[in-house]
């Protein structure tokens, strides 16, 4: 049962092959017995899951089940979940029992999904390796000495280890796509504004976007059908019709125009990854696509622009963590300043403090124009590159990451080296465009991700392209050797 996709499980539930309770118990059991190796969960919500499973089964018995009713999944521990600790993998929120549900959680609850628990992540989603978690690093099921990527590393690891069929993630600079690539699963970052951010603990407000992580594009479509849509509680959430993402999965790729940005195949790309990506492109040609080289000339600006804008927004988004209304509070503060400084000094980890300081600096008097304003200008140049390119091609393809999964500890002492991990992913967040990562091969026995980028609100097209690829290949079905049945 553990090796089935969401779509297969939905079929099994509908056919009465097993109940949601049986399925949920089986998942919980796998998590209990196997997650020690991966540390992919921060909190397992056993009681909640069993109650939801029972409710789903009785709903099904009364003939009112929807496609998602009774399907088990996990949520990144960045989504506020009422009555459940929502930690953002930080000491700051280690004691925070969320008093409300994020819109995304509410939507999955209403769809009948079963919440197995909250997954590990980089603290406040700041990182590309899951090493900055207060709860220790999650581990890559393909090699537990290696990182699963980040920040949604726990969700990716749990799916790759077949502990859960699917999980939510968030992506601010690659935090869905990069761990998906490193763990050999499928992840989608939707267009900015497609999914509500209400209740999703903010890292960088103009870049953050929630998305599905699963084994297949078909499952990602099922999840996006639940997640996407207007939310009056989020001013940046778009009021726009949501298509049925499952409906167009099998559309033909005949005549699909694929652009390959030459900047994404330059020096720092691992040759084995380049080869796998090229193989995948040939597969698309067999499916009827045409391929041309394109240029995104401002690609080099993405990393520096991102590492101003994201920390700037983060530095003020995280000001609310002050030990007054919720969360960690230092012992015996002598005065107000002591309360603030020790609460925040002790409650935040190293990387979070670093980014708060970078952002504070970039916004401070005398530097605003040179840093923040300049970065916002570069952001527009980057966006215009994509707009121009997407006028000529339907999708852009390239590697998701420059390297396969690296060893735990390998980059954690050098933040700049870590930041280069996201070189191919974070431009999309700056532009607000949707992107996917799908497994497309292996390098040194580790998964390789193909990134597929589409135009604004072209999620259905991305899922269609990914699904057809997965119909023709079996990379997405490969499981780590360590997986036990």
């Amino acid at each position, binding site marked *: 049962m553990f090796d089935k996709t969401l779509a297969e499980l939905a079929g099994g539930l509908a056919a009465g092959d097993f109940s949601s309770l049986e399925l949920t118990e089986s998942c919980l059991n796998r998590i209990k017995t196997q997650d020690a190796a991966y540390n992919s969960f921060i909190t397992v919500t056993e009681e909640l899951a069993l109650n939801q499973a029972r409710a789903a089964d009785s709903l099904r018995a009364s003939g009112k089940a929807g496609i998602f009713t009774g399907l088990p999944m996990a949520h990144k521990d960045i989504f506020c979940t009422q009555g459940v600790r929502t930690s953002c993998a930080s000491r700051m929120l280690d004691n925070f029992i969320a*008093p409300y549900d994020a819109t995304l959680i509410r939507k999955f609850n209403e769809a009948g999904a079963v919440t197995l628990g909250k997954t590990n992540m980089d603290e406040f989603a700041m990182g590309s390796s899951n090493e900055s978690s207060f709860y220790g690093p999650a581990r890559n099921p393909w090699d537990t000495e290696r990182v699963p990527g980040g920040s949604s590393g726990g969700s990716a690891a749990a799916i790759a280890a077949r502990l859960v069929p699917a999980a939510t993630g968030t992506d601010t600079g690659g935090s869905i796509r990069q761990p998906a690539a490193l763990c050999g699963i499928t992840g989608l970052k939707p267009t*900015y*504004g497609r999914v509500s951010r209400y209740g999703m603990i903010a890292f960088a407000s*103009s870049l953050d976007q929630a998305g599905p992580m699963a084994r297949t594009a078909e499952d990602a479509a099922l999840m996006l059908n639940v997640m996407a849509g207007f939310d*009056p509680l989020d*001013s*940046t959430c*778009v*009021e726009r019709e949501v298509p049925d993402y499952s409906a167009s999965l099998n559309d033909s790729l005949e005549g699909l125009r694929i652009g390959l940005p030459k900047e994404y195949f330059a020096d720092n790309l691992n040759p084995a990854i380049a080869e796998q990506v090229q193989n995948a492109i040939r597969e698309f040609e067999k499916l009827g696509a045409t391929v041309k080289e394109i240029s995104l000339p*401002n690609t*080099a*600006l993405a*990393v*520096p*622009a991102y*590492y*101003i804008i994201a920390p700037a927004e983060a*530095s003020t988004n995280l000001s609310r963590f*002050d*030990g*007054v*209304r*919720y*969360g960690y*509070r230092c012992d015996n503060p*002598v*005065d*107000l300043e*002591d*309360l603030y*400084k*020790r609460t*925040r*000094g*002790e409650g935040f980890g190293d990387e979070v*403090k*670093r980014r*708060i*300081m*970078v952002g504070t*600096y970039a916004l*401070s008097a005398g530097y605003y124009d*040179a*840093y923040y304003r*300049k*970065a*916002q*200008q*570069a*952001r*527009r*140049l980057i*966006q215009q590159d994509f707009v121009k390119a997407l006028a000529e091609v339907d999708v852009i393809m390239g590697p998701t990451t420059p390297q396969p999964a690296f060893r735990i500890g390998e980059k954690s002492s*050098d*933040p*700049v080296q870590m*930041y280069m991990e996201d070189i191919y992913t974070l431009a999309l*967040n*700056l532009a*607000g465009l949707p992107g996917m990562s799908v497994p497309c091969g292996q390098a040194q026995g580790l998964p390789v991700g193909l990134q597929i980028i589409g135009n604004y609100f072209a999620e259905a097209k991305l899922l269609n392209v990914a699904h057809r690829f997965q119909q023709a290949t079996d990379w997405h079905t490969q499981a780590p050797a360590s997986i036990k049945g």
Partner: protein
Amino acid sequence: MALERSDVEKIAHLARLQLREDEVEGYTQTLSDILALVDQLQAADTADVEPMAHPLDAVQRLRADVVSEDNQRELLQSVAPAVENGLFLVPKVIE
């Protein structure tokens, strides 16, 4: 741009972050490295480019002026570190 130790201390104060004595050196180094990375931006020609604050060219939606929230004090203060008589307590504020 290389930062001095004193710059880091100033930034940390502005952000209300207590750094341990032995941490300041490390932060001075990594923050300087990051600033060197982002300084690559200075070479970009951005003359006449309109800054982009948001990915979507959208405008603010307006909310009807109707009360939608009721009193949830008990629930919301259940996660507060220090509360008395419905008030959040902090060390004495001196104006």
